[in-house]
């Protein structure tokens, strides 16, 4: 039997109203222990007020070797940004 505890990914909500952000990983035997360990390891300095844990094997990630084909197409679509459009200064913020 494999005696290694599984790896968990930890997400912390730093402040009420914000979304959870990935902060790191840890080992734990089950989900409850993962929350306890995350609390001990990742919130010692008031880093947050809510914790999510997800077993690392359940995370599906994009393939790093597909960098260009996935993200390059957005590069030349400058018309998706507000600054692409000419609005005279006297109109102010729009």
């Amino acid at each position, binding site marked *: 039997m494999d005696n290694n505890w599984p790896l968990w990914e930890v997400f912390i909500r730093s402040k009420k109203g914000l979304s959870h952000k990935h902060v790191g990983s840890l080992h734990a035997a089950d989900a409850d222990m993962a929350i306890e360990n995350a609390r001990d390891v990742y919130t010692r300095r008031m880093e947050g007020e809510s914790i999510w844990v997800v077993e690392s094997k359940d995370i599906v990630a994009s393939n790093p070797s597909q960098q260009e084909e996935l993200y390059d197409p957005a590069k030349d679509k400058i018309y*998706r940004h507000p600054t692409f459009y000419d*609005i005279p200064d006297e109109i102010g913020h729009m």
Partner: protein
Amino acid sequence: MIEKNLNQIFQARIDSEEKIEARDWMPEKYRQTLIRQISQHAHSEVVGMLPEGNWITRAPSLRRKVALLAKVQDEAGHGLYLYSAAETLGAKRSDLIQQLLDGTAKYSSIFNYPTLSWADIGAIGWLVDGAAIMNQVMLCRTSYGPYARAMVRICKEESFHQRQGYEIMIALSKGSEEQKAMAQDALNRWWWPSLMMFGPNDAESKHTAQSMAWKIKRKTNDELRQAFVDATVPQAEYLGLTIPDADLKWNEERGHYDFGPIDWDEFWQVVKGYGQCNKERIAARRKAEEEGEWVREAALAYAEKQRIKKENQKTKVA
């Protein structure tokens, strides 16, 4: 008694500006109000693609075409963020869509007006998105966390929508006499429906008081409408266009523009399904839903096939 306590604790959290999150206790009516509001907001994003989609193939230049394509694509994304936010409250996407298709859920009545000329694309970006932004900036501070966060994302993306619309309006109003007339005609047709987007007057609005107490809304319909008029009048002046309201004038004392009465009969007619394009819009959504059915089925069948394949490989190795 326990329910009463929970309600009091909930209201205290709201009063102290805490965000409510998906798994927190909330009054059933708060949940239902949010599901209704967020899903109708999502439907509006999706139905809102139809009047603008009408002009993608006929945009007057490549610059205008890529901008409009990108905008309509954004609206689809906004619909997705919002449906997902509603689902955090336990709603099922298929139920929400069914409510749109069978008419039990509403969407913004502005999208039941037709887009007759290219200038309408300018007017929609400028006025309709401008009005939507007023509402959405307020909703960035709504009390339900997932909704507020979706709105922050949407507002960031929305800025270009209004700017591309206003840029179209500048080009037309500084163009030939015919182009200027097109811009004025579009403003004439879209002005009043844009003011109606904020909903009934405060005195008539049945949801406002509770929504304000729960901080789902932070400003009333009339406050938002006034802010929109105040922001938009100078923009129309810059274009050299005339807002179709004889009563519109600056009120020094109030520090706001006064404006004429809104034709609420027209508003309710459109809400109840008798606008110019209500039938066409719902028919288009039904067609999309029916024609997409086999795609959804095929995707599930393919996923199932992949799952079985993987399982078989595992047993072989074992």
